[in-house]
C-alpha cells in the first residue's frame, strides 16, 4: 500500500495531463491513444480508489485538489466509460467524494455537482433520443427495458451489413466502406468484453474486404486477444483462427501466455497442461492452418534452445503435438494441406510413420514401426541428408515423445536371451543424446545393452531385492563415467522395470529412494511417472496393476516433494 501511494502522485500528474489532451479534441490520434492506455488507466483508477476510500472527503481535496477535474474528464470520454470495469471504478471513486452531511454552501455545491456527475454516468440520459424517450414513457417502459433491446438490434444490423459485404462483393449498395469498418473496429476496442458485442466482434474478425491491406485497427486485435486470454470473451475457433492469421502478435502473445503457465512455480500435471492447451485453441487452430502450426512450432523450438531443453518446454511440445494430432483427425479424414506444409524440414515418409498413433497399430507390430523410424532417422542423422541436421531430426522426434518410451518398454520386455535389436538401441541413444557424436552414441548403446541384459534376466524372477536392481544398474567399474543423459536413460529403464516386472512392485519404493539422491532427480522421476500415466491414458492401455502402482507412487512422491501442495 505504501509503495502504491508513493507512486500515485507522479502517476496522478501523468494521467491528469493525458486526460487534458484527450478531452481537448476527439481526433483519431487521441482515440488511438486512449485505446492504447485503457488497461493502465483502469489500473490507475483502481489504485486511486484504494487510496481514496481510506480518506474522508476533506482530506481528499487536500491531497488531490484537482480530483474533481480528473474524475469529470474521465467521465466525458465514452471510450473510458465503455471499457471493462472503468465505469464501475469511477462510480466508486465518486462515491468517496459524496458527503453525507455538507456543512456549508461550498460543500453543498460540490456535493450536488458530484451527484449530478454520478447520475449522468449511470444513466447517460443526455444522449437519449427525445422521441424515443417520450414513446417509451407513454408506453410504460423504462430505459432498462429499452436499451438492451436497442443494443441487440444495432449489433445485429451491423453484423448483417458486414456479412453482406462478403456475399455481394462490389455490387451491393449496402456495402460498408473500409473507413466505416475501421471506425467500427475502433469503437469495439473498449467494448470487446461486453457480451452483447460478441456477434459484432466475430463478424469483424471474419470480415474480408476487398482492400489489399488490413482494414481493422491493430489495437482491436490486441484487445480481442487479451480478452480471450483472460477468458472475458468467448468466440468460436473460426474467429480466433482469423484473429491469429491476420495479426501475428496476437498469436505470439498467446504462446507467451501459455509458457507462463507451463513454467510456473507449481509443477503442473500433464493432465492440467493438456487442459490449458485445449482451452488455448492453439492445437485446433494449428490443425486448421499450417501457418499457425509453423509459428507455434518455431516458438517452441526457440524456447527449447534458449532453455537448453527444459523439461517443461519439452512437455509442452509433446502435449501440444498430441492435441494437434487429435484435432487433425477430427478436422478431416484426409488432410486439407499436405504434410509437407506442416513439416517442411522432414522427410514425408518419416512424418507419416511418426504421426501414426500407436494405439492404431497392433502391439505386436510396434517393433516394426520403431525399426522403421530408427532407420529413417539414422539415415538423416548420419548422412546429413537434405533434411537438416541432427537437431532438426531430434526436434521432430521429440514431438512424438511416446515412441521413445515405447522403445524403452519394448526392449525391457523382450526375451532375456535374445539380442536387443541395434535399431532400437540406436533410437534410444539418439533420443537421450542427439548431439552425441558417432563414438559417444556407440558407447551409450553399449552401456544400455549391458544394463538391459541384466534387467531382462531379472524381469521374470518372482522375488527381487533392491540390491539386485542396484547391481544391474551399476556402472562398469574402471570405464568412463556415464554421461548424465545416459544416467537419465538408465533411471528411466529402472522405473519401467519397476512398473512392469511382476516382482518390481514390492521393491518399488525402496529402489526409488535409492535412486532419488537429489531434488532434481526426484522431480525427474515425478515427471516421468506423470508422463507415463498420461501416455498410457492416450494409448488406452489397460495394465491395471502397473497403473495403480504408478498412480500411488506419483501421489506419494508429490506429497514428499511439496507436502502442502497436492497438485492434481
Amino acid at each position, binding site marked *: 500500500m505504501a509503495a502504491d501511494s508513493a507512486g500515485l502522485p507522479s502517476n496522478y500528474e501523468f494521467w491528469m495531463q493525458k486526460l487534458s489532451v484527450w478531452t481537448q479534441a476527439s481526433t483519431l490520434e487521441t482515440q488511438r491513444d486512449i485505446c492504447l492506455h485503457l488497461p493502465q488507466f483502469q489500473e490507475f483508477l483502481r489504485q486511486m480508489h484504494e487510496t481514496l*476510500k481510506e480518506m474522508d472527503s476533506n482530506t481528499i481535496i487536500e491531497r488531490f485538489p484537482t480530483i474533481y477535474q480528473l474524475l469529470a474528464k474521465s467521465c466525458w470520454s*465514452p471510450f473510458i*466509460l*465503455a471499457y471493462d*470495469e472503468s*465505469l*464501475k471504478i469511477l*462510480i*466508486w471513486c465518486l*462515491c468517496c467524494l*459524496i*458527503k*453525507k452531511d*455538507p456543512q456549508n454552501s461550498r460543500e*453543498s455545491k460540490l*456535493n*450536488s455537482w458530484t*451527484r*449530478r456527475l454520478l*447520475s449522468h*454516468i*449511470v*444513466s*447517460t*440520459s443526455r444522449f437519449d*433520443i427525445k*422521441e*424515443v424517450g*417520450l*414513446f*417509451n*414513457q*407513454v*408506453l*410504460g*417502459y*423504462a*430505459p*432498462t*427495458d*429499452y*436499451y*438492451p*433491446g*436497442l*443494443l441487440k*438490434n*444495432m*449489433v*445485429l*444490423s*451491423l453484423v448483417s451489413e458486414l456479412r453482406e459485404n462478403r456475399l455481394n462483393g462490389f455490387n451491393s449498395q449496402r456495402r460498408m466502406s473500409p473507413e*466505416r469498418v475501421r*471506425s*467500427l473496429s*475502433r*469503437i469495439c476496442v473498449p*467494448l470487446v468484453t*461486453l457480451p452483447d*458485442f460478441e456477434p459484432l466482434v466475430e463478424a469483424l474478425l471474419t470480415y474480408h474486404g476487398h482492400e489489399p491491406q488490413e482494414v481493422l485497427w491493430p489495437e482491436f486485435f490486441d484487445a480481442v486477444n487479451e480478452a480471450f486470454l483472460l477468458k472475458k470473451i468467448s468466440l468460436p475457433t473460426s474467429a480466433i483462427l482469423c484473429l491469429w492469421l491476420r495479426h501475428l502478435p496476437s498469436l505470439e502473445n498467446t504462446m507467451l501466455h501459455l509458457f507462463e503457465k507451463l513454467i510456473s512455480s507449481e509443477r503442473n500435471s500433464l493432465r492440467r497442461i493438456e487442459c490449458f492447451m485445449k482451452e488455448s485453441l492453439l492445437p485446433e487452430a494449428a490443425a486448421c492452418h499450417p501457418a499457425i502450426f509453423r509459428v507455434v512450432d518455431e516458438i517452441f523450438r526457440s524456447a527449447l534452445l534458449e532453455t537448453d531443453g527444459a523439461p517443461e518446454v519439452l512437455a509442452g511440445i509433446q502435449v501440444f503435438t498430441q492435441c494437434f494430432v487429435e484435432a487433425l483427425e477430427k478436422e478431416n479424414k484426409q488432410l486439407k494441406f499436405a504434410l509437407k506444409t506442416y513439416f517442411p524440414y522432414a522427410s514425408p515418409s518419416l512424418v507419416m510413420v511418426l504421426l501414426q498413433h500407436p494405439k492404431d497399430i497392433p502391439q505386436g507390430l510396434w517393433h516394426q514401426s520403431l525399426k522403421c523410424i530408427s532407420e529413417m532417422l539414422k539415415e538423416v542423422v548420419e548422412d546429413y541428408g537434405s533434411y537438416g541436421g541432427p537437431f532438426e531430426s531430434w526436434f521432430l522426434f521429440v514431438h512424438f515423445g511416446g515412441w521413445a518410451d515405447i522403445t524403452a518398454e519394448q526392449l525391457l520386455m523382450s526375451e532375456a536371451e535374445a539380442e536387443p535389436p541395434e535399431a532400437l538401441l540406436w533410437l534410444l541413444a539418439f533420443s537421450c543424446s542427439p548431439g552425441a557424436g558417432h563414438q559417444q552414441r556407440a558407447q551409450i548403446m553399449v552401456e544400455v545393452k549391458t544394463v538391459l541384459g541384466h534387467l531382462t534376466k531379472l524381469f521374470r524372477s518372482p522375488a527381487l531385492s533392491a540390491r539386485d536392481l542396484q547391481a544391474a544398474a551399476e556402472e562398469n567399474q574402471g570405464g568412463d563415467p556415464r554421461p548424465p543423459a545416459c544416467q537419465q536413460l538408465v533411471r528411466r529403464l529402472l522405473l519401467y522395470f519397476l512398473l512392469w516386472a511382476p516382482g518390481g512392485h514390492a521393491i518399488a519404493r525402496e529402489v526409488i529412494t535409492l535412486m532419488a539422491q537429489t531434488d532434481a532427480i526426484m522431480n525427474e522421476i515425478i515427471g516421468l511417472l506423470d508422463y507415463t500415466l498420461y501416455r498410457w491414458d492416450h494409448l488406452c492401455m489397460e495394465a491395471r496393476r502397473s497403473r495403480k502402482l504408478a498412480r500411488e507412487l506419483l501421489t506419494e512422491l508429490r506429497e514428499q516433494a511439496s507436502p502442502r501442495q497436492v497438485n492434481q
Partner: protein
Amino acid sequence: MDSLLEHLDRFSEVLAVSRTTHVSTWDPATVRRALQWAGYLRHIHRRFGRHARIRKALEQRLQNQWKQEGDSGPTPAPGLANFQALGHCDQLLSLQLLANPALGDASFHFLLQQLFPGPGVPDAEEEALQGSLARFARCRAAAHMLRFHAYRENPVLQKDSVMKTQAELLLRRLQEVGEAEAEGPGRLLSRLWERLPQSNFLKVVAAALLLPAASPRLQEEELGVGSPRTPGDGRQELLRWLLGKSDIAVAFCRNLPAELLTSVAGRHPELSPVYLGLLTNWGRQLHYDLPKGLWIGTEPQDVPWEELFSRFQSLCQAPPPLKDEVLTALKSYKAQDGDFEGNTSGNAMNKAYDWGKIFGKLHHTTFLCQKKECKEDEARKYKDDLQGTEAEI
C-alpha cells in the same frame, strides 16, 4: 397470495414516489426499506418464474394498475410493466433514486453505500445489483457510442435499429395489455395516438406490422417458459385498431412513403382493399386541366398526380397476390371508364370520364413500366405523350 399482491401494490407506489420530490422526506431507513422490498420482489420473480398461476396473478395485478392510470390525466410514468420487470425492479428503483436531486444528502449517501459497496463484496445479492447497474450503464454507453460513430439510419425503415426496437416494444406491450383485458390494446393505441408526434408513431406502427414473426422458441426464451402468448397477437390487435379508425387509416396511408405501404399491404392483405379504396378516392378528386395539360386536384390537400402514380407503381412492383389485385382493380376501373366513353354531358359525367382516363393511363403506364422495367422518367414521358394525344381530342 393476497399479501404478495399487496406487497406488489405498495412497491409500485414506492416506485412512483421515487420519481417525485416527495423523496426529500425519505431518510436512510426508508431507503433501506424500499431497497429491501425491491429485493424481495426480485426474489419472488426468481422463485415463481415458472409457476404459471402465481405469475399470471401478479401479471394481472400489474396490468390492472396500468389500466387505472388510465386514459385521462397525465401520462403514466414508467413503473413495473410486466412480470419480467420484477426481475430488475431493484435496478429500476435505484436508477430513479440516483437521478432524483430531491433525495437528501444523507439518504443519497446511504443509497450509494448500498448500491456500490466496492470491490470484494462477500454478499452475492449486493454484488449482483452492483454488477447489473454497472452493466446497464455500460450497455447504454455502448449504444450511444455505436449511434454516434457507426450508426447509419437505414433507408429501409423497418430494418432501422431504433425503429425496430420501438416496434418490438410496442408489440410486446400490446400483448401484455391484451392479456389482461380485451379492449386494452385498442385503448392503449388511441392513447399513444393522442400523445405522441403522429408521423413518428405511424412509422413505428408500420415497422411493427413488418416485424418478422419471431420463432416460437425465441419467444419462449424471452417471455419465459409457460407463457401462453403467441407472437402474432400484438400485430393482429394493431391491424384491427388501424383499420377500425378511418381517420387514422387515412393518415397512415397518406403520410407514409409508398414503398413502406406496399410492404405493409403485401404482408397484411386486410390492408390492401382499404389502401386501394383510398387511392381510388384520391384519384377521383383529380380532374384534367386542358390548358395546362395536367391532372390536378381541386383542393390544396388533394393528393397530386405524381404521388398517386408513384404509389400505384410501387404496388404494381410488389410480389403477387398484391400485384395481381392491384392490376385487376386498375383494369376494372379502365373498363368502367370504357362504359362512359363518348358521354361528355354534365360535370359529373365529365368527372367519371376523367376518372376512367386516369386509370387508363395509370394502368397503361404502370403496366408498360413493368413490362419494360423502365424507370420512372421514361414512364412519365410516355404519360406525357398520352396526355398530348388526349389534348387533341
